[in-house]
């Protein structure tokens, strides 16, 4: 596999975590513009643990996921009482606060004779665990896609369980779900924490792939794209958001057909799909049709 293909597939995999994070919240009826904050929390905390404190990546990834879940809970507790646009705006504001927090974060230690750690707007260099442990790009790609497959497997299992039914119920009609005895707020808090952990996992993998991160990596563009992938791909199945990533990164960007105009094409595609297929390419109806067809 050549470097370019490995790079494209790595980016698709990494974006997959963010798209699934946004999708999980959409299932619960919440549209978040702030998942990039938890991606950033994962990237920074995971990077600090391996580069500054010498933790192994697997342990750092678990800790980063815990940090992402905690940060998501902190944001969700005051914002989940908001609805619709107000919730979306609140999550965006929280994400911007997190990004400014990264800009103000200065904590460096000397590692192998070089200052290592977050240096505000100058970024955080030297997240070299993957590199120093001889993990080749192809192997790292396999790790990313294995983890993504495990997450997809968990989603499939969840959607076939009562938990999945409860989640979709809460998302589509919270009042009805509450009248059936579901604790809607508790379900939404759990979803927010899981979505935060998922975004953080993507973040820690991104930081170690790139070896360098900076606050600008975690601005609104990342959050908007993640949400758009879930909306383009569809809310009927876990494969919807991944299809969204594939359409943008794989097809539009990977093919380089539209060159610098890709963002315009992408924006137009989102607008068109929201008009023609408001619940995405793989919406619930399409998924049911596919299931009937192949069962």
């Amino acid at each position, binding site marked *: 596999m050549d470097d370019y293909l490995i790079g494209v597939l790595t980016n698709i995999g*990494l*974006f997959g975590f963010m798209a699934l994070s946004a999708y999980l919240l959409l299932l619960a009826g919440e549209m978040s513009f702030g998942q990039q904050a938890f991606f950033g929390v994962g990237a920074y905390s995971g990077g600090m643990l391996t580069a500054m404190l010498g933790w192994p990546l697997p342990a750092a990834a678990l800790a980063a996921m815990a940090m992402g879940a905690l940060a998501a809970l902190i944001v969700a507790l005051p914002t989940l009482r908001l609805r619709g646009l107000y919730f979306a705006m609140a999550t965006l504001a929280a994400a911007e606060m997190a990004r400014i927090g990264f*800009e103000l974060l200065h904590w460096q230690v000397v590692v192998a*004779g070089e200052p290592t750690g977050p240096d505000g707007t100058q970024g955080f260099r030297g997240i070299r665990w993957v590199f120093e442990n001889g993990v080749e790009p192809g192997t790292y790609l396999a790790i990313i896609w294995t983890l993504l497959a495990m997450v997809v497997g968990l989603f499939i299992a969840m959607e076939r369980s009562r938990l999945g039914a409860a989640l979709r119920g809460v998302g589509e009609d919270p009042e009805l779900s509450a009248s059936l005895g579901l604790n809607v707020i508790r379900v939404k808090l759990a979803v927010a924490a899981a979505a935060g952990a998922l975004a953080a996992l993507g973040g820690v993998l991104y930081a170690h792939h*790139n070896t*360098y991160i900076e606050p600008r990596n975690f601005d609104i*563009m990342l959050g908007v*794209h993640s949400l758009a992938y879930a909306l383009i791909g569809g809310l009927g199945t876990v494969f919807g958001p991944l299809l969204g990533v594939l359409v943008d*990164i794989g097809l539009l960007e990977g093919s380089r057909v539209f060159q*610098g105009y890709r963002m315009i094409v992408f924006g137009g595609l989102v607008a068109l799909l929201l008009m023609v297929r408001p619940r995405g390419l793989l919406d619930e109806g399409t998924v049911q049709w596919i299931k009937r067809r192949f069962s």
Partner: protein
Amino acid sequence: MDKKAVLLGLALALPLPTWAQRAQAKLECRSTGTDYVYDCIIRLTRGAEPLQGAKITVGADMPSMPMAHNVKPVQAVPGDKPGEYRVTLDLEMQGEWMVKLRLSGPLKDQLMLRYEFDASGARPLKRADRPPRK
């Protein structure tokens, strides 16, 4: 004093040997006249000495939109002077780019260089910290 302790102390007090030092790189780019295509010279050093014989794969990503631009990685070729390498970068647009140099050969490393690309060429970017509130 114990001889071993003296030797250890000396070893720690001495600067890191050249082989242990990380590589440094500078980039000089000029527009080719074709939109967003730049001819670049990479100057690679390690411990102030030019680093020769490196195999460099050059990629790029935009900090404000991470992972969304897949610039095709290209191999740099040795330039006219020791430690110099030439590469042509085909970017998607002007603006801030993180140029990623993946080194193999005498040294395995990955260097990330933050540059602003405009109509004429590229310049290193050092973003100012947020000014203190008055």
